[in-house]
């Protein structure tokens, strides 16, 4: 590996590297400070670093990864590339520090508390034991830290939020409070649940958070909840108009009903599923082509992935990839008739990387935030064994044939038949037998080349 960044640059950053914060408690803790050389010593750390680099979504990221894998010395990289690497190195170390601290926080006591948050959690933590549950949780969080920053940060924020509460969060007690409050409103479950008429939307959820987080008073608070068209726009004065006053109060009742409906969904699973469908359908279109939100969508997603994993599908993709790569090589070097062994090895390596990237996208497909998003991701992982790294994928790719290798047996067969035909013609000539005679034709027809129809004897 090439020399590190200049010592002057290194020292300039030393002050920042010494301490970091525990992401859950905010306590100051020693910071991880691995150099690029150290990160690249192990395959796992290296892959995590590359994943973080790719998440930067810079156009040059794949080329940088390629250069690093080929051990291109750092001084041969451009200055802004070196800056990017340093930026990612700092972020990588920050993540490593966070993960180290989180691992320590997720002890048996903490996992027992987490178990109280949900019946499913209580059951499974009980099955494997809180210590093992903590290890599993930490490992999954580590995977997310380098593959899905958004999800990782969401989970860390939730762990942090949980930690703020002195006595933990008891799901059962909270459900009881919700049920009592709803009973206090004097409205039954059935009345609230009219999911077919549309339900609270993601917009309602957002408004709830806005309402309780802001310090708005008076009319500004009211206007948050009531559409402006309902209120006359001139300085939001209340008019002595009985109808308008009644309308405003009716609007408030509707908003209260929206909130109550959402609350109801949190304690009645069947309602929750239906409400979630409305939230999902009303949610923003994500930039992925595929999103999974229902069991049927999961089934078709899995069928699609299964089809692409079949050997003939993979061979077809490889043929196209190889042809395109060979064409590029020829454009670079017109004297090259076809790829040599080194070229073929590089093409296979690149194809393995492309396949792995594609499979990771299938694995990390966007599971809509529904009741069963955790379930769907886990079922996919359970039923599909996707190669964990490029080395494993390369084993599959090496079993594929290059276009030349696929043609060769046919060519060889054709050549053998042509050779035989020529031998027979030579023999016929030596023996003075005309190739056009009945005997000559019979002998030649016996080694008819593939694809040619045998001529019928007349």
């Amino acid at each position, binding site marked *: 590996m090439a020399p590190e960044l200049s010592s002057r640059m290194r020292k300039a950053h030393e002050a920042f590297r010494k301490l970091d914060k525990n992401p859950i408690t905010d306590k100051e803790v020693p910071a991880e400070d691995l150099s690029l050389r150290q990160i690249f010593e192990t395959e796992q750390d290296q892959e995590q670093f590359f994943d973080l680099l790719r998440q930067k979504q810079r156009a040059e990221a794949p080329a940088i990864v390629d250069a690093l894998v080929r051990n291109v010395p750092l001084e041969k990289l451009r200055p802004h590339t070196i800056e990017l690497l340093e930026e990612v190195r700092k972020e990588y170390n920050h993540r490593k520090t966070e993960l180290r601290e989180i691992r320590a926080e997720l002890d048996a006591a903490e996992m027992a508390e987490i178990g109280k948050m949900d019946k499913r959690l209580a059951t*499974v933590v009980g099955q494997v034991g809180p210590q093992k549950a903590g290890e599993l949780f930490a*490992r999954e969080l580590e995977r997310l830290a380098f593959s899905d920053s958004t999800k990782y940060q*969401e989970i860390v924020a939730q762990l942090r939020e949980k930690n703020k509460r002195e006595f933990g969060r008891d799901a059962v007690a909270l459900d009881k409070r919700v049920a009592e409050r709803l009973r206090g409103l004097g409205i039954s479950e059935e009345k609230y649940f009219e999911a077919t008429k549309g339900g609270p939307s993601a917009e309602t959820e957002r408004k709830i958070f806005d309402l309780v987080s802001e310090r708005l008073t008076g009319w500004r608070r009211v206007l948050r909840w009531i559409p402006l068209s309902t209120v006359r726009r001139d300085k939001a004065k209340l008019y002595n108009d009985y109808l308008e006053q009644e309308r405003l109060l009716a609007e408030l009742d509707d908003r209260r009903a929206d909130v109550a409906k959402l609350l109801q969904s949190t304690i009645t699973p069947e309602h929750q599923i239906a409400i979630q469908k409305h939230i999902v359908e009303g949610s923003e279109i994500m930039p992925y082509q595929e999103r999974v939100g229902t069991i049927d969508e999961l089934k078709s997603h899995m069928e699609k992935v299964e089809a692409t994993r079949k050997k003939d599908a993979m061979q077809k993709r490889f043929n196209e990839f190889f042809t395109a790569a060979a064409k590029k090589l020829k454009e670079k070097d017109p004297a090259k008739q076809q790829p040599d062994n080194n070229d073929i090895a590089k093409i296979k390596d690149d194809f393995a990387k492309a396949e792995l990237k594609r499979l990771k996208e299938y694995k990390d497909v966007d599971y809509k935030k529904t009741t069963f998003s955790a379930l769907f991701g886990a079922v996919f992982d359970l039923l599909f064994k996707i190669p964990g790294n490029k080395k494993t994928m390369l084993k599959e790719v090496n079993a594929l044939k290059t276009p030349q290798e696929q043609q060769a047996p046919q060519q060889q067969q054709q050549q053998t038949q042509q050779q035989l035909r020529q031998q027979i013609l030579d023999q016929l000539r030596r023996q003075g037998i005309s190739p056009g005679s009945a005997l000559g034709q019979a002998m030649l027809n016996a080694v008819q080349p593939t694809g040619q129809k045998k001529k019928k004897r007349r």
Partner: protein
Amino acid sequence: MELDRIKEQVLALLKNGDEKALEKFLVQNFKNLPDEVQGKLLVGWFNDAARKMTLQEKALAALEELDKIEMSLREQLQSN
């Protein structure tokens, strides 16, 4: 072998299209699942539970606020 049996059952439940039954099955057989799958479920369910509890707490607070808004509205109406 246990894992093969679980996979077969999961496939069958998947074909039936019943999410609740599938989830129940995975909860019951959790300890026999591969580590990676266990981890994914643990974090996923934690995420679900945390979101739900946060929503409940804030929604309860929202109902309190709405009651206060209504009270102040009615007082203003009466004073007008």
